[in-house]
């Protein structure tokens, strides 16, 4: 048996480390660990709760929109505001714009290099001028003997796509996606001021009022992006998922824990109401797709036995504590806590949402790929929900245009009495929640259960693996120096934290150093 260490895992957000044990070419066990801590929950203590909406966005520069939304929902809840419809809809547009930028970024820029042999571009023999330009670009890098950051890389494995035409097309879409995702951030900036880190979502709503001109400025960018997303991004994921990448799905690479959880996303009625969201909230246990249950936030707890915290384990977030101890003994291996729902690990994210939503189009797509969780299925779910969201943005724009003079904010003064608030919503990559307690106008407790914590948390106190750890188990790793399937699974969860995977010889505890040149 070999133990494999990948540190750092790149093409993700943050600092994450994963170790796996490999036996007979298959992963037998896995450990996921976050290797960085700043302490947002600590530094916001004693501060004005309104600051949390700005500051906790900075938990993650990729997921900043979601942290801002979770935070404002929590502070809204504590202040007792009633967000006007236009405030709610503008928040939806800000949030949705980020999703439309985030999903293609994940597929092309973070994940795709695991699935294509980029050097196959040099063999492109067609005569499409756009693809020839891509070929010239890559060939010129090779000739200059400087192919960073495309190399070094894991040696292409049996599943990697090598067809020059397919690869060259994918690389041209990679380059297009760099430009197109910027449109999503421009759309976000039109309503939010800038991206990343919008500035005008405040307790009670937003500071900005809708105008016909702003809707038009938004719409021409949105329709351009929507067209590209549907005809390029979604089309690529469907074509690759039902074609050259299907063998990876058929091998069930990245199965996971089979429990799913979603807080829902995009408020359709009252702001923060998890029962009335465009993407529904709920849970699925043991892949029982016929029995989708309501999600009860009181069943959320966080274990820390295997995390670098000396605070008590199994606490509910509303009374949670965060007291770091990076030298904690007893087997702790991560700065990520281990969130549980009803005592069990649950996967959050696009696949969870689409399995709960059960839109006929998705179920048809799932039928073509094969109805079980996998790395490929997660990409498919992410693409499909992009398509769904595009349709709903048009509905919100119509609603906004019909009520153009409506109010945008229920601006209430900072309360001085003791209050509590919960703000939970799905993020592009999982389910994200903030819990705030305030008194005398200051934060007395703040707890964040991160989106990626649901997926990347370490073992639970009872030793049960977290969702990503479980999903890696069973992945074929025929060559420990090229653990491509491990990073495929890891990246299919779109991690938002820093991540590393290790390869170690467990009998000798010696780390197997592997270098690929």
């Amino acid at each position, binding site marked *: 048996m070999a133990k494999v260490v990948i540190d750092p895992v790149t093409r993700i957000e943050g600092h994450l480390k994963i170790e796996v044990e490999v036996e007979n070419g298959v992963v037998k066990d896995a450990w996921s660990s976050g290797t*960085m801590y*700043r302490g947002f929950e600590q530094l916001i203590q004693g501060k004005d709760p309104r600051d949390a909406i700005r500051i906790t966005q900075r938990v993650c520069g*990729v997921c900043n929109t979601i942290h801002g939304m979770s935070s404002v929902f929590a502070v809204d809840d504590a202040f007792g505001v009633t967000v006007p419809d236009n405030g709610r809809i503008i928040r939806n547009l800000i949030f949705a714009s980020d999703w439309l930028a985030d999903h293609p970024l994940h597929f092309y820029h973070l994940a795709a290099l695991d699935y294509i042999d980029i050097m196959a571009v040099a063999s492109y023999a067609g005569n499409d001028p756009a693809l020839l330009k891509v070929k010239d670009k890559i060939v010129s890098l090779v000739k200059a003997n400087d192919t*960073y950051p495309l190399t070094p*890389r894991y040696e292409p494995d049996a599943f990697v796509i090598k067809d020059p035409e397919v690869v060259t097309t994918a690389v041209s879409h990679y380059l297009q996606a760099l430009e197109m995702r910027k449109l999503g951030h421009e759309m976000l900036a039109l309503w939010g001021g800038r991206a990343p880190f919008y500035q005008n979502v405040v307790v009670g709503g937003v500071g900005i009022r809708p105008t016909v001109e702003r809707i038009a400025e938004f719409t021409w960018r949105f329709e351009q992006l929507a067209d590209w997303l549907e005809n390029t991004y979604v089309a690529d994921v469907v074509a690759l998922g039902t074609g050259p990448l299907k063998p990876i799905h058929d091998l069930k690479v990245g199965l996971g824990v089979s429990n799913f959880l979603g807080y829902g996303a995009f408020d359709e009625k009252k702001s923060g109401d998890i029962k009335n969201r465009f993407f529904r909230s709920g849970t699925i246990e043991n892949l029982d797709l016929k029995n989708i249950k309501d999600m009860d936030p009181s069943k959320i707890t966080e274990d820390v036995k295997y995390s670098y915290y000396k605070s008590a384990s199994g606490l509910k977030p509303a009374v949670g504590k965060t007291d770091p101890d990076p030298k904690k003994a007893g087997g702790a291996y991560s700065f990520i806590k281990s969130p549980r729902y009803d005592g069990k690990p649950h996967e959050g994210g696009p696949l969870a949402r689409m399995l709960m939503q059960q839109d006929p189009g998705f179920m048809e797509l799932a039928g073509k790929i094969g109805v079980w969780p996998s790395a490929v299925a997660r990409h498919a779910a992410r693409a499909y929900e992009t398509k769904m969201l595009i349709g709903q943005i048009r509905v919100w724009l119509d609603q906004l245009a019909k009520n153009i*003079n409506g109010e945008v904010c229920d*601006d209430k003064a900072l309360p001085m009495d003791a209050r509590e608030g919960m703000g939970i919503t799905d993020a592009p990559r999982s389910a994200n929640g903030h819990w705030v307690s305030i008194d005398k106008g200051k934060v007395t407790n703040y707890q964040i259960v991160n989106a990626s914590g649901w997926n990347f948390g370490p073992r639970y106190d009872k030793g049960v693996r977290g969702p990503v750890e479980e999903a890696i188990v069973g992945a074929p790793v025929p060559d420990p120096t090229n653990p491509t399937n491990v990073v495929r699974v890891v990246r299919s969860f779109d991690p938002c934290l820093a991540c590393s995977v290790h390869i170690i010889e467990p009998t000798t505890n010696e780390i197997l150093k592997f270098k690929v040149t």
Partner: protein
Amino acid sequence: MGESFKGLSRRDFLKVCGATATILGLSQSYVPQIAQAIEGAAAKPPVLWLQGQNCTGCSVSALNSNHPSIAEIVLDILSFRYQPNIMAASGDQAIQVIKDTIKNEKGKYVLIWEGAVPDKEDGLFAAFGEENGKPMTCDKWVTEAADSAAVVIAMGTCAAFGGIPRANQAVTGAKGLLFDGTAKGGAYKGTTPVVNVPGCPPNPDWLIGTVVYYLMNKKAPDVDNYGRPKMFYGQTIHDNCERRAAFEAGLYLETWGDPAAIAPAEGGTATQNYCLVKKGCKGPITYSDCPIRRWNSRTSWPIGAHGICIGCTQPEFYAGLAPLYEKVPEVNLFGIQTTADNIAKVLGVAVAIGLGAHLVGNFATGRVGGKGGDK
């Protein structure tokens, strides 16, 4: 000059150079000089982009670069040996690239450092990569990578001054590279020049402009007392704010989204968009060119979208500027005046003093301090 440069047509290449001149605020007559700086190098200048206590917001912001685009920057202009969010390599492969670059490109590469650097608990609050089974901590990385670099860019407020993680310094020991808030004495003790490009996040133009300036001139741009290039951070937000006239007229927004304080073009009924200083705007004490440069292909900027400036380019950010939604207290404005001698070298300070005096005047007459003083 050849027909093509690193896969770009000559025409496209010159367009990139022209756009770069624009970022730098240079005349287009500098295009040949920029072209010479970029083309003259035998190979693309190597870059190591390392991350400490970061959130990747700086990297995401850099992805939004327009002229030149991020694809041009990554594939045509610079050689990104290590950038953890885009590079193909993972694990030991990736770490080896850093080590090789430090060894083989000594004195030649640009180090871009994103995130604060913590030193408590042996630096264990931020680590990436392993050596002999032990985590490699960022306090060691920063010294090793910066010492052999030609120049270091402290990208973002965390790297420059400690930023948000510094608000939890008692626990993690977070600091910037050269600065600990407003004070000298950060995590990097070596002698390689460090240019601060703060912002939470920084505008992509501030980064690209600083890098290209360095490539053109082989020296860091002129900086203020906090190590920030004056070409981007020379004036306060307030100096160039589109709501400055409302401030001068004593027209202050009191309720978010109030149509009576918002201009007709923005969906309100007021004569103009009212100043946000009573809502806590930090524009008066914040140095950057946001009002002119704007964000995201110049679509908007925080105050333009009816949000406050939170002072994110400042060494005091975040803890020193809290609470964000309370107006900048008078004492701080007097503070600027009383410490003016110490920061007199900062370009634009005279304007800040003038502003301080003006705002204090408004407080004195009840235009800012009193309820509905503008009505």
